[in-house]
């Protein structure tokens, strides 16, 4: 019997229950799409790895690559150095592959996609239509009223359901598709770059991802091309007990530019779910990539039940001179976040920036930060991290700034600020600073404080209630990071800040 024959269909969850839960929750995306799914059997074996590869119609070299990763994974241990505490994960009690039945035959165009799936994304506010997205942000009086185009790749559990604006992008020479399609259609690019920034055996979760990643996005921007629109991937975990392991590969060839957005949500469930992603970005000479994330996986309920375990490896390699990368992240979701988007500044005069807001409330735990590895001359990096902790949550900034002996005349500036709301939460800062040459300058500053009483009183005297005042002050605290986001994300992020902190005062 082959693994394929063992696929099963799971019963849908009672819709009433889902709706009832939804009513009482502040998490807007906690509902579930009732759709017929196809699962690979639970657990992780070489057969499952082969099955995933087969489902994606991959060539043999890719299957071998995955199997090699699987062997390495067996030898690796789960890291325990982060300040997060969660029950042991049974890696054999997970589904590693789940796709809607209707995706068995890959739709040729968006018109052929199951309406239920389209409706799901519509409901999430990400219509999979080729339309303008209207800009509307704070300070809108100064913003142009015209719409902006954003191309979307939508990933549902293990598979990509569709990518918009592909034709228009193709005209510009930009490749934007699911990674499974790229493996089939652009093997030479995938072979060259996959695993070149995050090696297969980089860490426990990256190795796991290398073995079982099911889908994700692929971007290639040819030399000299400024991508005509923003690219976006929207990840949705829907199925229960299913891990999502997406893989994103972005290549910005010489002198090109792209802004990439990533969003994520998941239904509200009692049991925790695993998400282990890998993002690799290659930036050649004079190219620039902006990568923005609004991470809003289900954080668990106010008693700490359920929620996503989010273990993510993201790394950008500035290979060419004057290459630039900017990571911006707004982390409001997940029960556990373990994530360090990093920059390898290899090219001379290359630049890396990291802007982060991490909000933890209730029982959430986040251990997040960045690594800035300065290898090239006159490389620059900037880190702005704003951590906000409320409830009984723990929020840690962990980062590394490393100036290698050859990285002459380089600069780093780091600012880490933490805000505590209530006396039962924690905020921690764990920076590593390694300076191995004297012409480089490294500056690190960190502060921890609570929401200022004077500011609170001032706002309340002007008529705001406590929650409004906290949301306003926290948004101000995080302003520098919010400003780094593309406009349509900035708006969403601002609202998320307020929603994430609901119930944190009084």
């Amino acid at each position, binding site marked *: 019997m082959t693994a394929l024959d063992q696929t099963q269909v799971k019963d849908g969850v009672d819709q009433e229950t889902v709706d009832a839960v939804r009513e009482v929750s502040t998490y807007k995306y906690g509902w579930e799409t009732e759709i017929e799914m196809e699962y690979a059997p639970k657990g992780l074996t070489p057969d499952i790895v082969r099955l995933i590869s087969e489902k994606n119609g991959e060539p043999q070299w890719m299957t071998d690559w995955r199997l090699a990763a699987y062997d390495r994974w067996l030898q690796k241990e789960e890291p325990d*150095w982060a300040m997060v505490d969660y029950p042991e994960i049974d890696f054999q009690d997970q589904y590693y592959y789940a796709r809607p039945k209707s995706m068995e035959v890959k739709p040729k165009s968006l018109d052929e996609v199951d309406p239920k799936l389209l409706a799901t994304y519509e409901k999430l506010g990400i219509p999979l239509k080729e339309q303008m997205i209207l800009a509307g942000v704070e300070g809108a009086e100064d913003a142009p009223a015209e719409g902006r185009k954003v191309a979307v790749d939508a990933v549902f559990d293990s598979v990509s359901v569709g990518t918009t604006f592909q034709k228009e992008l193709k005209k510009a020479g930009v490749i934007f598709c699911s990674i499974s399609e790229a493996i089939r259609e652009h093997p030479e690019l995938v072979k060259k770059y996959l695993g070149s920034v995050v090696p297969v055996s980089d860490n426990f979760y990256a190795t796991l991802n290398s073995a079982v990643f099911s889908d994700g996005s692929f971007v290639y921007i040819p030399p000299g091309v400024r991508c005509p629109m923003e690219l976006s991937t929207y990840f949705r975990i829907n199925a229960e007990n299913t891990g999502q392991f997406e893989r994103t590969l972005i290549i910005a060839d010489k002198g090109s530019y792209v802004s990439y957005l990533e969003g994520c949500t998941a239904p509200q469930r009692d049991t925790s779910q695993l998400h282990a992603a890998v993002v690799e970005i290659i930036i050649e000479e004079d190219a620039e990539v902006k990568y923005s994330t609004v991470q809003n996986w289900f954080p668990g309920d106010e008693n700490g039940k359920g929620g996503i375990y989010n273990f993510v490896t993201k790394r950008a390699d500035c290979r060419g001179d004057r290459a630039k990368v900017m990571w911006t992240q707004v982390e409001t979701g997940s029960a556990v976040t373990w994530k360090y988007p990093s920059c390898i500044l290899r090219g001379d005069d290359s630049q890396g920036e990291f802007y982060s807001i991490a909000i933890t409330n209730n029982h959430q735990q986040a251990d997040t930060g960045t690594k800035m590895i300065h290898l090239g001359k006159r490389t620059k990096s900037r880190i702005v991290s704003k951590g906000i902790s409320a409830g009984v949550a723990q929020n840690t900034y962990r980062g590394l700034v490393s*100036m290698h*002996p050859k990285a002459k005349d380089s600069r780093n500036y780091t600012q880490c600020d*933490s805000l*505590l*709301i*209530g*006396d*039962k*939460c*924690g*905020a*921690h*800062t*764990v*920076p*590593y*600073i*390694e*300076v*191995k*040459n*004297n*012409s*480089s*300058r*490294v*500056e*690190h*500053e*960190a*502060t*921890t*404080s*609570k929401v200022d009483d004077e500011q609170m009183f001032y706002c309340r005297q002007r008529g705001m209630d406590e929650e409004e005042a906290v949301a306003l002050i926290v948004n101000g605290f995080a302003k520098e990071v919010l400003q780094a986001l593309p406009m349509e994300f900035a708006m969403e992020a601002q609202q998320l800040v307020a929603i994430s902190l609901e119930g944190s005062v009084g």
Partner: protein
Amino acid sequence: MALPQTKVDATEARIAQYDLPASGWSLSARKSALARLRDMGLPSRRDEYWKYTRPDTLVQADVPPAALFETDERPVFSDVDRLLIRFVDGVFDAEGSDDLALEGVVIERLAEAGTDLHWAQSLYGQLENNGQTPVQRPLAALNTAFASDGLLIHVTKTPSKPISISYEHRSETSDAILHHVVKVDSGAEVTILENGPAAARFNKCMEVDIADGATLHHVRTQGRDHERRAVTHIFARLGTESVFKSFTMTANGVMTRNECVIELTGDDAAAHVAGACVGDGDFHHDDTVFVTHDAVNCESRQVFKKVLRNGATGVFQGKILVKAGAQKTDGYQISQSLLLDEDSQFLAKPELEIYADDVACSHGSTSGAIDEEALFYLRSRGVPTDQAVNLLTLAFLAEAVEEIEDATLAEEITARIEAWLIRHRD
């Protein structure tokens, strides 16, 4: 979790060199320290807490020999009116020491403290043991188990002059372990001075208990013998409204690891730890500080400055831990290095771990070369480059030296740093 065999072997090889005393009030504390040492094992380079400093030479059974340093310089603090106590290669030097009598203070030697009940029994190895969590400090446990001597200083009333402990290094292969216990009673104020290289390899531990309203000033210099190695620990416990101020100047030494573990257990207490170091060549200097706020309205300051040249390495690991309920904490930490040439390096891990909301904690860390604009400004006013560099270097170190409250002592330290800079000009 079982220790790796290599660690067990290294630990046992070191333990085999020493014997526990046959009797004495400290014996039970020594035995439990030995037990915890065996549990932890001596540090190896793979331990996170030793990420930036290789512990090998501090751990190994054989003492790496250290040449004696010839100098015509007068020992530091020579002009201070003080009670002098001298150790040579870790052995008490009665002839070189003053009579151990000082009004308001009882000073005894650990080696002579006998078998009867002793006040130090409630402290010896106890503060060290408290300081083993959350981070292990096996070399301190080794010290508690096998210290050959040390001073037990009980301050009941403010004495008329500082207690000055001077360490001399005369043997190229000496391996000294000393353990001091200092207890300052309520309301008393005392200054303890330490100076000198002590031995080829020196392991020193000082446990400090500062009662409500008491004050301890601690100023030390670590001696200029370049090949010496030292690992030192201070474990300080502070009561309500007490004050602890510790300053260390280090010039030279191929291996120095100074750990300072402070627990603020009473409200309104203040702890300041500061260090200024100047290093050349294969100099390796590590300041590892852990301050725990476990009471309301306490203040802590960590100020560490390092001037490094010719491939010297400076390490700083500092942590402020604010426990739940330790509201109104004011925690400050700054670690800075001035790298005078290409090959020197600075490795830092400044941490905050905070579980109370009404706090103001901050840390800063910088590393860089001398400010070219400032240098040019001074030169344009006629100051020669060498002198200008020294001026700017002294200015850089000033924030740490200013932590010494006594102006005369601060001046002497500044003068010593200046002399070092002049001598170590290229």
